[in-house]
């Protein structure tokens, strides 16, 4: 019996044909193949990513440092605002006192659930892309833990007064911020597309921040009115990662008067994350050259993407995730 041993040209040809076939099979098969290789990276990658994220945290501070003087100024302003708020709340309570009793009973019987119907899975970044052009990360939890494509990943953001030393556990005074979406899920690992990746896209809403020192006029029911909490409806937008350090929202009407500092949030009717969770801050607003009356928003994520380490994967309890597409486009 002759033992078949392929020559090098035959082997090479077979490999190239196989690669061409894989290229044409598409990203779904690529995702499945990649997930099978993750086990080679995940166990040994954890220590390496710990070093990398620690280094990136040192070199790129995620929060802007505020000066002592500015912190004092903010404190004084806070005291004044709190006093105003207390007096207004007292007035409001008197007016609405009787109504609230009835409403409370009604809400208790028929009102919507107050808590967000989701669960969280903690995961850790264990590897990044081989090439530097994309923003994706490999996580150490996968399908066996319940992670599926299209799920959001969030990170808890801690804000504290940097002029004081933190002792013990710092109190979290800001909620979760979205950092990306799962695009591939293997048995024990999954891959996350971060907000700034060129392939990331999502529907969101812009929450305009009301600043009494800098009021803005908006068109509301065919009339120009000063923006106030009563008429501050969120502006729905479609955002994409620009592959660099921003997300971009295009074709946003200029009359919405969106400004730098406004907040991008998830939409509460999104099946994958049915809540208003902060995603980023509008960094700059530019006129859209192609569309008159429209603007382009450049949104900076709230999280330092380069130093991302611990994330929480959001598992919706409503079971609506099957409708979420590969890149999260569900509408």
């Amino acid at each position, binding site marked *: 019996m002759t033992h078949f041993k392929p020559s090098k040209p035959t082997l090479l040809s077979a490999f190239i044909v196989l*690669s061409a076939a894989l*290229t044409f099979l*598409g990203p779904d098969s690529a995702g499945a193949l990649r997930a099978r290789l993750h086990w080679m990276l995940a166990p040994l990658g954890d220590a*390496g990513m710990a070093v*990398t994220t620690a280094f*990136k945290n040192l070199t790129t501070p995620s929060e802007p440092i505020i000066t002592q003087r500015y912190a004092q100024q903010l404190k004084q302003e806070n005291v004044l605002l709190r006093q105003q708020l207390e007096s207004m709340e007292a007035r409001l309570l008197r007016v609405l006192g009787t109504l609230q009793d009835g409403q409370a009973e009604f809400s208790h019987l028929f009102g919507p659930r107050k808590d967000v119907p989701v669960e969280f899975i903690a995961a850790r970044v264990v590897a990044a892309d081989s090439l530097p052009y*994309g923003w994706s990360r490999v996580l150490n939890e996968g399908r066996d833990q319940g992670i599926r494509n299209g799920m959001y990943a969030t990170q808890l953001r801690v804000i504290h007064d940097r002029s004081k030393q933190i002792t013990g556990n710092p109190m979290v005074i800001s909620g979760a911020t979205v950092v990306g979406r799962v695009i591939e899920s293997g048995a024990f690992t999954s891959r996350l597309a971060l907000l700034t990746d*060129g*392939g990331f896209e999502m529907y969101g809403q812009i929450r305009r921040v009301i600043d009494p020192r800098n009021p803005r006029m908006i068109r509301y029911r065919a009339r120009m009115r000063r923006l106030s909490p009563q008429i501050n409806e969120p502006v729905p937008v479609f955002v994409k990662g620009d592959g660099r350090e921003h997300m971009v929202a295009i074709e946003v009407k200029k009359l919405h008067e969106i400004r730098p500092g406004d907040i991008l949030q998830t939409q509460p009717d999104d099946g994958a994350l049915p809540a208003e969770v902060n995603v980023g801050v509008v960094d700059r607003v530019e006129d859209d050259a192609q569309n008159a009356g429209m603007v382009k928003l450049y949104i900076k994520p709230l999280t330092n993407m380069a130093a991302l380490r611990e994330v929480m994967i959001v598992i919706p309890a409503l079971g609506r995730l099957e409708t979420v597409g590969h890149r999260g486009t569900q509408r």
Partner: protein
Amino acid sequence: MIRWIPFLLLTYVLVLVQTTVGRILTMEQFSVGPFGPDLLIPLAVFVAFYAKDVYDAMLCGWVIGIFIDLTTAGGGGAPTRVGPMAIILALAMWVTFNARDWLYREKVLPQFIVGGLLCFTTHFLWCVVQIFFASRGWGLLGSLCIQVLLSSLYTALLTPPAFMLLWLCRKWLFAMSTSSRSRRNR
């Protein structure tokens, strides 16, 4: 002749370093977008310069390329496809292998130039192919070109020092030929 097990082990270690602790070398907070060195390119250049056989060099290129394909998912405007880098790098190795006779392989300058050119060619073609298949993201190509150029310069700078390290383990990577013909040629 290539010693395949040490070569595969070295490729795996380099991929592991590149996807984890090697990200320290990546510049991520730049307005043009992130860029960084490709640590596998110096290995590819080294193999192309010192492999005995063009098919060995191309097979090594294919292996390195498939490793890169399997550990990269972003950058092309959509989750990327597996296969293009394996084909591109295998073909690029053929060109590099055939061009090596016109170069002083031991000198720093040819290593720098070939490292940069190989990185630029393979990465640029990979980006174009991925964007073509994604059918979107052509707007990303301009900034990707700059990113690829900066990554190539970065890789070119690292290629000569990497060559010095790889030279130390050349006996581990390449088996000495023991055929009668090669003995006669010695």
